[in-house]
């Protein structure tokens, strides 16, 4: 199987490679801090991240991919839970 974003090899039945899985988990986890700080909705969160110069490249790729594939926050959460990548950084 290949990562749906970068075509890297993925292990088992994951849709994303370990790098994009890591990025996805971070994207989901940081939403709480954004909500507390700026009270933004999920879509607005993604929009603002996409236009922020400090946002990482993999995060942007996740945003673009989820937008193109019409993935909701719930879809992404399910995907993150299904991901088989190891939790540590590369």
């Amino acid at each position: 199987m290949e990562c749906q974003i970068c075509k890297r090899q993925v292990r088992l039945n994951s849709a994303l490679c370990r790098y994009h899985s890591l990025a996805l988990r971070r994207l989901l986890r940081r939403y709480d801090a954004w909500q507390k700080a700026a009270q933004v909705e999920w879509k607005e969160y993604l929009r603002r991240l996409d236009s922020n110069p400090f946002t990482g490249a993999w995060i942007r790729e996740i945003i673009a991919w989820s937008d193109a594939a019409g993935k909701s926050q719930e879809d992404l959460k399910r995907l993150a839970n299904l991901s088989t990548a190891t939790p540590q950084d590369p």
Partner: protein
Amino acid sequence: MVPDRTSSKYTFVLAEKPQAAARIAQALATQRPVKKRLRDLPYYEVDWNGNHLVIAPAIGHLYGVAQERRGSPWPVFNVTWKPIYEVDRTKTRLKSWLAALKTLGDSAESFISATDYDVEGSLIAYTILKYALNADLEHARRVKFSTLSRQELQEAFLHPQPSLDYGLIEAGRARHELDWLFGINTSRALMSALREAGLFEKLSAGRVQSPTLYEVVKREAAIRSFVPIPYYSIMATAEVDGAVFPAYYEKEKLQSLQEAVQVVEDCNGNFGSIKAIHTSERHVPPPPPFNLGALQREAYRHFHSTPSRTLRVAESLYLQALISYPRTDSQKLPPSIGYHAILDGLARSRNYAPLIANLQKEERTLRPAEGERDDTAHPAIYPTGNLPSSGLSNEEHRLLDLVIHRFLAVFSTPYVKELTQLTITVQEHSFRATGSRLLAEGWLRYYHPYSSIAVLPLPPLTEGQDVFLKSVQYAEMYTQPPAQYNSSSLLRFMERHEIGTKATRAETIETLQRRGYVKGDPMQATELGWATVETLKRNFRELLSVDLTRHFEERLAEIERGAKTREEALQEAVVFLKDVFGKFAETSKENSKELATAVRNARRDSSVLGSCPVCKTGEIRIIISGRTGKRFAGCSRYFDGACKYTTPLPQKGSVEPLHRVCQTCGHPTVRIRYYRARPWLLCINPECPKKAGWRKHGVSDLQKASPA
């Protein structure tokens, strides 16, 4: 031809480099030394202290580690030392050099090792004396010096050490053999995995290189997966009796917008009062003298000179007897180097005379500031007090200037800064303001222009005084990702984790760039770098750990101290490697697929310069002509017949796509790299208006390019 007096008894002195041999000969000769040549090898004959000396140079390492039998399958664990021209095919010209040394050494009565006093220098002399000259090592002597100044060299030759420095030699042998065992086996493992996919590419891994690459990759991963989080900071403009100054809210980071808006509403345009004023003095002592790492970092900061370049320039200054030996860890300057004599020497330059006069007036007793690091072999880097006799290059000149200013600064006093901190209260909120002024310039005066401090005076204020908060505003800020590594910060990482040596760290960084594992500065891991780390992580995870590297560094230090033997360390490495390589074959298919994809992409990346400026649909690629073997750039749609665009490229050096277009004409730009020279940026368009001036001076486009 053998020297005239080889029939009589003479002592063979081995220097590390030709320039060092010349310096030694000049220092010891009462008259002008006699320079001779045997094939390519220059050497000198000198009468010194009743002995006839033949002084000949090595030219770096003339022996290297190799496997015992060529073509053995990996893993290989049998190592031997062979002449460098057999190990490295690019060094065949050293065959005659080594033969000439052998001829000179054959009739020598005794031997003195006068190479640089460190692990590498001692090893260079040992391997040549042992393998090439077949010398009586029991009676070989060693001279120790830290500068190539006449006085120090004469002192060193008057009192040579009675034997070779076997602690350093054994540690050096062990380091080379360990690095070879780790490097050759892991590199071959990577390349054999790639070969399974039908590709060939020179890939390398190693005990020091791999953890360093892994660190760059980890940093890159942290940056690529970074999610910035907003926070809010509040700044006020405070006014007292018409004077304004900035003040900051007591909490530097507010986590919510709501809270920030509330503070602004409560405080903007209101009066507060000064609750407390606290004044303190900060004494900042002079920095310690330079060791190699600090010099490389400072040179990067001020001149953007890479660590390897700084080392080369520093070595050149050392060989000209202008600074002491640069490959040192020490931050100490013992009185034996002769502080006053150095200052007197430097005072002959009108650039430094006023500073030195001032320093000698201020400091009756010279006592340098020192750091904690020490190096048993050499003191910190210091100027010898000699002034350059002929023109130095710009790079040499500015590095020497930096070393001299640092040397002067370490003898000076701390600079003193007065800090004033005050608190302004408005309702239940507090703001802080900080002012500073310089009370005593201290060492900053001597280290100018390489240091500067910001001062921000506050108006005269008293406690209880009313303050008008003219404007209070919040700013939305974001947490930021860690910075990418650059040559300097990566060097600091290696130093902090004690991986590699002061002499090899810069070279390791250069190797990562040369192999295409990282690119740019700040550094970005390439896809090949990622894939290599992935493969290593799957198969040789321990090799990526700084712990393993550090463990063997400790072993090497123990060997140097005589607490362990070289054989024990090697045995330990072999047991470890055998275990690791046993597992490699199991994941071979996975390794080869991932590496092959990365290599193909890397090749593609390095040959595509950008989109075609003519047809706008094709890609400009680097093409090697099958007929002439020459390199040029052309549109990928040439073979469709859709676009005929081609343009010449320089035939020498490497061409690196910048993936940027020329601001003037819109054609792709490239970076041209020549060996050990500054890279050049070049627009590939020969008709680019920026190049109009070149043609006027009759310079071909491809001979001249704008400096990077």
